[in-house]
């Protein structure tokens, strides 16, 4: 865990509201694992006050890549920052998706939820069979397809709600069939709450190891502020930043 003074090396708009950031951050890059996240100070001022959490798209020391969607104030400021700007970046934070080197794994990504799964695929696709189920509202939400094509994934299933890319419909519509035909041993998912909740319902009966990476409002990112509480199935709270962001899907109380 480092509070690193990084530097933006490249910022690229991938159409509409999506941006790719290449950041020089050697200490973090060296340690980053798929599933880890970072907390960025989007501006050197005290407003906005809090850092913002982002997943790590890939890591090639001394660089990491971030991929983000403009949502509000912080991400708007971030997209306007330029190559050469200093960037305070805290990480790598949280746990990682488990390494299951001998297993066939289905990665399930909703929209910008692709981020940690892209990282997983990048690191492990060459050594084991990985399937990807990737969905979004439309083609604009599925911008990383070209980069994913370059990876040796066993299979890719693309869904979009408006039909502009891949099959029409939510990605959950593809799940049953993929699981039945491909018989993965584990699933790893990241995406909107509603999607994760739906997955939890659909995967409950199947005998798979299921993992999900969660989001939450984060004040600190390293376990001290207690803001990122998520209710677990045992009725107690977990900290998404320190106990997660990756949890066994069954550990969480759905819908959160």
């Amino acid at each position: 865990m480092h509070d690193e003074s990084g530097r933006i090396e490249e910022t690229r708009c991938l159409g509409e509201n999506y941006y790719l950031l290449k950041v020089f951050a050697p200490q973090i890059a060296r340690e980053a694992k798929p599933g880890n996240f970072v907390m960025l100070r989007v501006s050197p001022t005290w407003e906005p006050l809090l850092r913002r959490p982002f997943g790590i798209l890939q890591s090639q020391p001394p660089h990491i890549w971030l991929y983000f969607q403009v949502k509000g104030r912080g991400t708007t400021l971030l997209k306007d920052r330029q190559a050469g700007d200093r960037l305070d970046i805290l990480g790598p934070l949280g746990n990682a998706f488990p390494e299951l080197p001998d297993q066939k794994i289905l990665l399930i990504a909703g929209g910008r939820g692709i981020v940690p799964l892209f990282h997983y695929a990048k690191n492990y696709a060459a050594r084991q069979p990985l399937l990807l189920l990737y969905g979004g509202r439309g083609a604009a939400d599925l911008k990383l397809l070209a980069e994913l094509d370059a990876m040796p994934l066993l299979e890719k299933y693309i869904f979009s709600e408006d039909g502009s890319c891949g099959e029409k419909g939510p990605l959950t519509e593809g799940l049953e069939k993929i699981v039945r035909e491909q018989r993965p041993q584990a699933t790893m998912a990241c995406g909107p709450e509603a999607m994760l909740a739906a997955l939890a319902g659909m995967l409950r009966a199947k005998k798979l190891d299921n993992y999900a990476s969660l989001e939450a409002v984060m004040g600190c990112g390293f376990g001290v502020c207690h803001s990122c509480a998520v209710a677990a199935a045992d009725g107690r709270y977990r900290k998404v930043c320190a106990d997660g962001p990756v949890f066994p899907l069954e550990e969480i109380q759905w819908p959160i």
Partner: protein
Amino acid sequence: MADLSVDLGFCRLKNPLIPASGTFGYGEEFVPFMDLDIIGALVLKGIYRNARPGNPPPRLFETPAGLLNSIGLAGPGADELQGVIRRLSATTRTPIIVNVCGQDDAEFAEVAGIFAAMPEVAMLELNISCPNIKRGGACPAQDEKHTYRLVKRVKENIAKPLIVKLSPNAADIVAVARAAQEAGADALSLVNTFLGLAVDLEKRRPVFANTLAGLSGPAIKPLALRLVWEVCRQVRIPVIGMGGITSGKDVLEYILVGASAVQIGTVNFCEPAAAVRILAELEKEMEKLRLNNLNEIKGKLAV
């Protein structure tokens, strides 16, 4: 190099910088970012007799240069914390302050008693000012009579030095400060968070389940500095000032208005090594102002 040590009457700290309760976890979380031995003391997250789940999320809301929180003192109970404290005191010689909470006077007294008995604990801070427990933000520190009664009861029970933490939401904070002093408080700390409101336009509901929440961070600094100044002028016991501190200059400003030491809160979230930077700035600023020690400026505001 300037002498940074400060005197709280009942004890001396090597410097005036104390991470504030609820913003520094149990200390251990900051080990990756700093040597805990460099700070003057540290306050642990508020503790009740029994473990508490805390309020339902969301628990934080960002405001301009500020932070509303409604954590509701999530955390383990007093038994578990004792173990944490023993571990912590094995890793640092920095004085450990326990932030004592309670849902009623009896619980305050009981929890205080538990930690006063621990040799690893240097002093207690009585958190009678948390706005996130009762609806509407009510707390003992809004009422001087309740404050007097409660502090007296706690103090009778323990031998450890007792800091009483005051609320900026009292109608008359100076009256409450005096009541705590008369009841035997060894020091005062202020301020806890200011009551604020955030709303969700789509849901037409408050953001927080508890409706109101507590505001902290740089936004409150001019308000907190005023309250610390007013209290310092009216009490004889040492005062630990806080509210929105982010720099070495801020630390000196609190000391100039009369504080003996300071706490830093929200800034620890934004910048986990904030204490390290602020201490370095404090030294530089003292050099610039040609101060050999903090007594030369403490309470020297000429009005």
